[in-house]
């Protein structure tokens, strides 16, 4: 090793040490734990081979959680990818005024704790005494008991997470839309191309590199962000109706003390993430435009 190499690794050492101790080694250890039956306390870990994985595949709750996970992904993509994309286009291209005001205000909830968000929305959306229920009551609409209703519970929990994540995704997408060559857009406008077409045919393809990035973080980080409202408001209930892959792994480990199941579930979740990433690279990335 020459001196440059040694210096390089010395500079990297602090980060690398933390990553080794708290990411890479734990990852390997989780893989190891997924082959054992253990309750985190007993001195003995019993080797069970692939039994934990088989248990998960056989367990009907797993399918419920898996379906929930995909519903979460769908709702989050709509609220944190598609809507902010459209807003970014409208504010940057269609509108002429108040751009900075909209940017600043839309980002604001992104700095607030999801615990705060969860508490505020639990009260705001209280089906009996909350303001939303009162206003709906004027129109004789009864609010569902959403914390106890399959389907609704996921939508509302997504709403809470989206409230926080929206601003960040919006700002990133806004920068991408803003980076699209203005002359192209102006030329299309002079040709009286409708705004919807400018978005679909020019802005969307030319900003797709960032679009893909936001798509990925919406899935990967969005599901993890969901943990907080689920844990605080429903604990995965009623009857696993609001649990997702992330929360279920936590539930297995720290409520049921089945570390093997939890570890196996986390590894499977990670595999799903990586498959999604690969699919995205394979099918979507082909049509993606990179600037350089």
């Amino acid at each position, binding site marked *: 090793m020459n001196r*440059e*190499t040694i*210096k390089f690794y010395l*500079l*990297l050492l602090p*980060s690398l*040490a*933390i*990553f080794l101790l*708290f990411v890479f080694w*734990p*990852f390997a250890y*989780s893989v190891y*734990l997924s082959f054992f039956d253990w309750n*985190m306390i007993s001195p003995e870990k019993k080797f069970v081979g692939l039994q934990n994985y088989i248990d998960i595949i056989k367990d009907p709750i797993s399918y419920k959680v898996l379906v929930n996970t995909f519903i979460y992904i769908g709702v989050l993509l709509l609220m944190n990818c598609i809507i902010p994309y459209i*807003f970014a286009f*409208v504010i940057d291209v*269609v*509108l*002429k005024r108040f751009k900075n005001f909209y940017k600043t*205000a839309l*980002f604001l*909830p992104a*700095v*607030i*704790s*999801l*615990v*705060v*968000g969860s*508490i*505020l929305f*639990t009260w705001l959306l*209280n089906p009996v*005494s*909350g303001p939303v229920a009162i*206003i709906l009551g004027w129109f004789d609409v009864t609010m569902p008991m959403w914390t106890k209703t399959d389907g609704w519970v996921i939508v509302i929990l997504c709403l809470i997470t989206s409230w926080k994540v929206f601003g960040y995704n919006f*700002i990133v997408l806004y920068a*991408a839309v*803003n980076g699209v060559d203005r002359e192209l857009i102006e030329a299309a406008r002079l040709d009286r191309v409708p*705004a919807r077409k400018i978005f679909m045919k020019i802005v969307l393809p030319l900003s797709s*590199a*960032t679009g893909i990035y936001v798509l*990925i973080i919406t899935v*990967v*980080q969005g599901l*993890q962000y969901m943990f907080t409202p689920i844990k*605080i408001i*429903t604990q995965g209930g009623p009857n696993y109706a609001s649990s997702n*892959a*992330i929360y279920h*792994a*936590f539930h297995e*480990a720290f409520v049921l003390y089945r*570390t093997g199941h*939890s*570890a196996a*579930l986390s590894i499977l*979740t*990670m595999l799903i993430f990586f498959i999604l990433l690969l699919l995205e690279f394979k099918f979507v990335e082909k049509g993606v435009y990179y600037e350089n």
Partner: protein
Amino acid sequence: MRTRLQIGGIWHVVLILFLVLMLYPLIYALGNSFKSLSESYGTTLNVLPKLFTLENYQAFFNSLPVIRITLNTFFLGAVTTIVKLVTSFLAAYAFVYFRVKYKPALYFLLISTIFVPFTVTMIPNYLFISRLGLIDSVWGAILPQLADAIGIFLITQSMRGIPYSLIEVARLDRLPHRRIMLDIVLPLVRPAVTSTGIWFFITTWNEYVWPVLILKSTEQYTLPLALQMYISAEGGTNFTVAMAVSVVTMAIPLALYIMFQRYIIGTFASSGIK
């Protein structure tokens, strides 16, 4: 031209409505935190309290060691932010200014940890922290997050924006790396470092997932953990106190954001561009 203006007008209405819905929860919390519990019944829709009272804040201070909890939150945020900035800056410098074999692979490996869900590392880290005897200690909450892939990424991005010739000239003058780092690179990337730091602080301040596993006693709690005590699926009965605690928890991040919003928005705008 007329249709264009109308379309613009419709969108302004849509956006303003959207913003009202988005920001209403904050106003709602602030207003109700100054009402007495009895007043809040039936008047939750009124933004302003009829009788301004501090009793909810007093109730919060009387039931929990609030000063201690706030200091814990501050300590967790400050230590994590400072160390993370140093480790990220050093790593970014190494990645940008050294030519070493396997560098791209190593960079890719570190950045790809963004895609590892926290559940994968949760059990081993919990066991490790408890073996170190740091359960219920703020250090146990701090330790696993002293390096950060997103921080390395953001600072690397801004260092790549510095003209390389500047560094080359300094190298030809045999300036040591320490001087290049502190006298040339750091001043040039200071805006990115500042906003990354503010973002780290806000994120750590708001953190819930890891601290809730590690910190057990109220003496060791951070503000989001204390706030969590004021909730149940039905909402519980301490409505106005919960609003007061929410206001206390979000005050510092909001103040930081309002002070530094241009910085923060600028850095995040650039974070998605490859």
